[in-house]
């Protein structure tokens, strides 16, 4: 399974957020996307997931064009972002049951507990989201993204606010998804952690892909020159 993008262009008014970006993310691997603020990382994620219709170019899965307007594609996508996307007044279990039901999954409490257990949060099922810490919320959001066993998982700064325990749980979960053959696309500012986890690394700058490389053997310092125009190394 391969998720590809060819010639992706996304404009916000006069600003070009993505400029003819090509990307390939293979199943059973993790693709990390890096770049300075405003490089277009989140826009790329939105275009790949189908949340935003690109102004030009296309996204394909195994050669077939996919689009956010296709419910079958949306059913195969999971997303974790720095905002949890949970309803604060509902318990974690109710949130999972709601999103699970929208994916056609049986709405029982056991299902919620089972998925929460995968992310180390089995005791959170009956707690209202508004009572959770930032790290606990992120675990619950992670559980929500895994409910429907997605083929493609997008993560936008998922480590934000996670304590060391939560971060290592997330890392273990990503490794497990990779072993299960999932396409994982990870957007992060954390170069060291991203390089450690990923099989490939892409750097975007001003909407353009300026580096696409194997991540093994790469250090954070190797990528920093690509963050600035002209490849000047950032001190």
């Amino acid at each position, binding site marked *: 399974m391969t998720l590809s993008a060819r010639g992706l262009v996304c404009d916000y008014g006069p600003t070009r957020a993505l400029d003819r970006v090509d990307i390939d993310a293979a199943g059973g691997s993790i693709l990390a996307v890096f770049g300075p603020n405003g490089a277009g990382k989140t826009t790329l994620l939105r275009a790949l997931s189908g949340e935003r*219709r690109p102004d030009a170019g296309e996204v394909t899965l195994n050669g077939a064009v996919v689009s956010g307007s296709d419910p*079958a594609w949306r059913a195969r996508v999971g997303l974790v972002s720095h905002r949890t*996307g949970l*309803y604060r*007044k509902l318990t974690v279990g109710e949130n999972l049951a709601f*999103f699970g039901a*929208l994916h056609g999954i049986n709405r029982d409490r056991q299902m919620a507990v089972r998925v929460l257990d995968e992310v180390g949060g089995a005791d959170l099922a009956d707690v209202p989201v508004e009572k959770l810490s930032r790290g606990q919320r992120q675990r619950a959001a992670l559980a929500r993204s895994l409910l429907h066993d997605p083929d493609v998982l997008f993560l936008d700064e998922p480590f934000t606010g996670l304590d060391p325990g939560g971060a290592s749980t997330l890392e273990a979960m990503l490794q497990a998804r990779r072993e299960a053959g999932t396409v994982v696309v990870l957007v992060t500012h954390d170069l060291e952690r991203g390089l450690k986890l990923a099989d490939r690394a892409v750097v975007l700058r001003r909407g353009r892909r300026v580096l696409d490389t194997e991540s093994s053997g790469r250090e954070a310092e190797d990528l920093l020159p690509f963050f600035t125009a002209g490849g000047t190394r950032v001190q």
Partner: protein
Amino acid sequence: MMSLRWARLIAWKDLQVEFRSGGRLLAMIAFVVLACFLFALALDRSLVPARNVAASLAWLTILFAATTGAGRTFDTEEEDGAFRHLLLTPVSRHAIFLGKSAANLVLVWIVTILAFVALTSFLGVRDAGSIARHGAVLLPGTIGLAAVGTFFGLMSRHSSLGDTLLPVLTFPLLVPVIFFGATASGRVLTERPWAEISGSVRLLWAFAIGFVAVGSVLFRYLAEE
């Protein structure tokens, strides 16, 4: 059938969230009670018989309260970015529109009942007419209000003008609903025969169905980037 199931899930979730937080509903209820009280104070009943104006005042109160509530329809969706995740589920956009409109309709019905009870009490109107006939008039009218409020509630979220834009967008569209609704309710209050009311009710149903149908089709263009 799947869309109706999804709509029911979304409506139930919205109502659960609303009844636990209560912010929007409390604001609507407070508005209705205060508005009805002020209308009753401002009306010189020695010049204008209360029964003749109660229906119009009730419909205006419902319109303003529904608009107040509609402006916050998507607050809980935006709070932690849940709407983004809702749109990424396989749920059809018209199911989201129908579900959120249905939840809004329940809230509008609560304030509608309150508005009629408050106004008839404050204005001293006795024998307010058949409850069934009031219901027959109010049902299509409030469906129209809820559908228009839901649609433009999302549009106003995308605008830098926010909630201030909402009345400007919704009031012109809702002129026929208010006109035929107030006319029909006024006739129910004054216990006129159903034959004089049914024409307005049919028109209210036509507007309600039209608003729901058009909103369902166009909602996806608002919801998706």
